[in-house]
């Protein structure tokens, strides 16, 4: 099999501007890892500043994980606050600094699952971007919010095992190795899930376009999507 160094940044940067985040240098990673280990250790000791730093450094990908796992119409802001509150309340119990990121992910996944069980939250019908409606100066214009809502609606239809790595790579620029570490699965599994996730997303987008009378590519529908409920 040909070698595709998929975690290296392309020189012709993708339009999403994630080139830097995708760069992967072993030396840089080691330095980063040391700094993170110290930071996580301080956070585990209850250092308020360190906890805040951990939160700031991780909250974006936590939002991506929540978006991948959260049920429809659940309010991701609420779930983020839950994760933040749990971090403050319980990070002292994490004695292994190296596992803090994995623990944060588990907290986020659990919060999303709990939201799925709570019918009260679903009844609220808040939605992720409900707060953006009619808020012109909030930094996110309405068209962008609409598009984001549509994209998120497609993501919500993906099984989480495919949605999560896809969100982490496509929205956060995480490398496959980092995703594999976070999810505690082999890199090859992450790669397969990414490919299947993208294929499923394409198929869902085609179906949506066809349903709304939009253009649907023949090739997209001609290719068969993998079984959606099966993990590789």
């Amino acid at each position, binding site marked *: *099999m*040909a070698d*595709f*160094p*998929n975690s*290296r940044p*392309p020189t012709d*940067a*993708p339009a*999403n501007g*994630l*080139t830097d985040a*995708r760069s992967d240098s072993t030396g840089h990673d080691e330095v980063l890892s040391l700094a993170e280990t110290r930071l996580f250790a301080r956070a585990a000791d209850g250092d308020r500043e360190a*906890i*805040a730093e951990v*939160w700031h450094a991780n*909250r*974006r990908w936590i*939002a*991506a994980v929540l*978006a991948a796992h959260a049920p429809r119409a659940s309010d*991701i*802001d*609420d779930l*983020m*606050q839950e994760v*933040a*509150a*749990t971090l*403050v*309340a*319980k990070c002292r119990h994490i004695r292994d600094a190296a596992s803090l990121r994995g623990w944060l992910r588990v907290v986020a996944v659990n919060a999303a699952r709990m939201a799925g069980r709570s019918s009260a939250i679903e009844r609220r019908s808040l939605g*992720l*971007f409900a707060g953006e409606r009619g808020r012109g100066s909030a*930094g*996110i214009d309405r068209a*962008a*919010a609409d598009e*984001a809502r549509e*994209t998120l609606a497609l*993501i919500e239809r993906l099984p989480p095992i495919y949605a999560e790595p*896809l*969100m982490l790579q*496509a*929205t956060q620029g995480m490398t496959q190795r980092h995703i594999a570490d976070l999810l505690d699965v082999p890199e090859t599994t992450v*790669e397969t899930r*990414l*490919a*299947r996730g*993208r*294929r499923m997303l*394409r198929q869902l*987008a085609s179906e949506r376009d066809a349903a709304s009378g939009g253009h649907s*590519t*023949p*090739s*997209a529908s*001609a*290719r068969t999507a*993998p079984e959606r409920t099966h993990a590789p």
Partner: protein
Amino acid sequence: MTPSHDQHQASGGEPPIDADLLLSRAVAGDRSALAEVRARGASDPSILEELAMWQADELRLARLGRTLDARADRIELPRRGIVGGRQSRLGWFVAAAIALAWFGQSLVPGVRDSRSTAQQQASVAGLGAGFTTADEAFDAYVAKAREEGLVEGEVAPPTLLRSRELTDGRGFEVVIVRQIIERRVSPEIYRVAPMGETGRLRQILVRPRTETVQ
């Protein structure tokens, strides 16, 4: 399976990469994969069209990511860890809980001696004036009480009793119970026991054992 896929296999070279895997690598920025897609596109133009659609999806995801990032950046750490509610709306309930706690203690007859009363006065004095919010007062109370050894901790998470959406769009009303673990020293305590034929409950004074008794 694309025609180029078949040709590649028939030529006896390296096993061809699955088209989805190749497209996924290409849209993630892998230049080798991109070159392979272009090569395959010479004999199978549909894969180029497919690549364009996947890249469009990738762009949409990236834009969703920016929107999510903006949302995530607004979420700051709560001042104190709670689960199941919004910190900013807890001030009232915290204030009520403190008031009830102190009010409740004042109703218990003869439980504290002059020393514990002095401790209580010190704690109250420690709260002081000039707090802008009830949360600040609560934090000051906990900090002071910890110093004095009166508070061992808080039971987390608080118990959610009920919540409802406010009709005026201000948010949600959340009713919770927060419990604080306090340690008090009392020279005597009371136990309640049924007394007499009627079985009425009466308080029975319990004093600590003296050194002689021990």
